[in-house]
């Protein structure tokens, strides 16, 4: 259920970022409403992940404002970001599971670090999170023994176990087979429907995009090229947008 009555959960205004000599973002304005799934698309290297990393304070902008659930993220020091990171969690492109910990211990990690000491509650919450992503039988495995799709699902379990209000997904279905991709999409949809989780998803997977997105933002040349619903995206007359979603390239050999 998307809630447009309150301030957007994520509000980005005038986001500028330069990495080295390259100006990645040149003034992005974006809102993500509570309970909404917003997908960011665009060619590689256009700043999709960079935008996402600003939301959770992994990067600081050169200019602009980022607010998450009313908290201004930019300008906060690393140790001051805890309130934001209690509300928002993130699935990394390669899941970023800790190699030395089993799946169960990876999923329990954020609970233990948040100071939860009740072993029974930790066990229950880990079990629930693994159940949501269909990994109940693989809790005792090390990440190295998991397939790509299982690693992604374990990453999602770790992201949802803290009951964060918002999850950022960085290419959740990249390098996965179509069936596993569909499982991941279903998990994202289920989290939105059952728990009202706000999602910001960076993706190149058009099938996934049309399944999970409420709205879509396209970045091109450091600017927002398109922002709208799936229907508006399909109906867009912008040739850059159409070329991108249909996978067309103008290449002279």
């Amino acid at each position, binding site marked *: 259920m998307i809630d447009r009555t309150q301030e957007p959960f994520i509000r980005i205004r005038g986001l500028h970022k330069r990495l080295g000599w390259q100006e990645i973002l040149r003034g992005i304005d974006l809102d993500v409403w509570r309970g909404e799934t917003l997908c960011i698309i665009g060619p590689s290297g256009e700043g999709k992940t960079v935008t996402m990393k600003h939301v959770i304070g992994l990067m600081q902008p050169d200019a602009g404002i980022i607010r998450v659930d009313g908290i201004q993220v930019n300008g906060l020091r690393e140790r001051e970001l805890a309130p934001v990171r209690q509300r928002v969690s993130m699935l990394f492109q390669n899941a970023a599971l800790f190699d030395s910990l089993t799946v169960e211990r990876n999923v329990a990690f954020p609970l233990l*670090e948040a100071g939860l000491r009740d072993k029974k509650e930790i066990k229950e919450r880990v079990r629930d999170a693994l159940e949501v992503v269909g990994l109940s039988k693989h809790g005792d495995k090390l990440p190295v023994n998991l397939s790509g799709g299982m690693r992604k699902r374990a990453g999602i379990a770790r992201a949802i176990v803290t009951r964060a209000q918002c999850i950022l997904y960085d290419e959740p279905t990249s390098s996965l087979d179509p069936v596993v991709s569909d499982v991941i999409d279903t998990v994202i949809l289920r989290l939105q429907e059952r728990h009202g989780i706000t999602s910001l998803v960076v993706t190149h997977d058009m099938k996934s995009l049309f399944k999970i997105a409420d709205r879509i933002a396209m970045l091109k040349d450091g600017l927002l090229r398109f922002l709208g619903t799936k229907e508006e995206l399909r109906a867009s007359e912008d040739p850059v947008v159409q070329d991108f979603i249909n996978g067309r390239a103008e290449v002279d050999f």
Partner: protein
Amino acid sequence: MHTVTEVIRIPGRAFLHFISYMGQIAFLVRDLMIAFTNHVWRLNLVAQQIVSIGYGSQAVVIVTGAFTGAVFTFQTYAKFKDFGVESSVGAIVSVALCRELGPVLAGLMVGGRVGAAMAADIGTMKVTEQVDALRVMGVHPVDYLVLPRFIAMMISMPMLVAESISFGLLASYLVAVYGYGIPAPWFLSHMVDHTNQWDIVIGMIKGFVFGIIITLVACHQGLRAENGAVGVGIGTTRAVVISSLVMLIANFFLSILLNYIWPLGNNV
């Protein structure tokens, strides 16, 4: 004109790199101090690191200490024999092992083994986004990755130095007494007479300082690793090279300072 510019630019750039590096180390020390004041020790991680650093370095430190003591005795005996003071070999070997050879060689060996491992472990976590994952979960990387290694190193390093010295002295005794036939009481009495507790304290202090150097340099290289496996490799190499050089330079100044406080030669 161009050459003059280059002459200024090259050392200038090196100087700026040095200042930048020292600044980064200073920030790491600041974060480490904050981590200390938070009183979250993660004792299980500290214990794991003590096993990895302390227990895992046993063979390296024992072999280094023993063979250093043995070869030093072998070389010293040959010269001391010319002066008819071969029974004093124990004294010179003992003082040299306690004050210099024990801590420096143990430091270099542990720096090579543990420093490389620290830089590679943390560097791999950095380039696979595991460090960012820690941050996203509200865990400061210095609290979780650096502090336990730092504490473990503080505990382990003086012990490893003591172990290195002990095995060096044992090897020296075996070579002198059983190899060259120096009477054991002579060897031991000279060794004990010319070695006092401050020689041992100096070795421990140096081990402690070298532990700090290894941890700071290695963790810093790990935390700034980028560009995948190549970056981790570069960081690991740099960790060993920089920590070794800094230890050798620091040892010189530490020797002067500690010798000023506890002068050599006031043992009898």
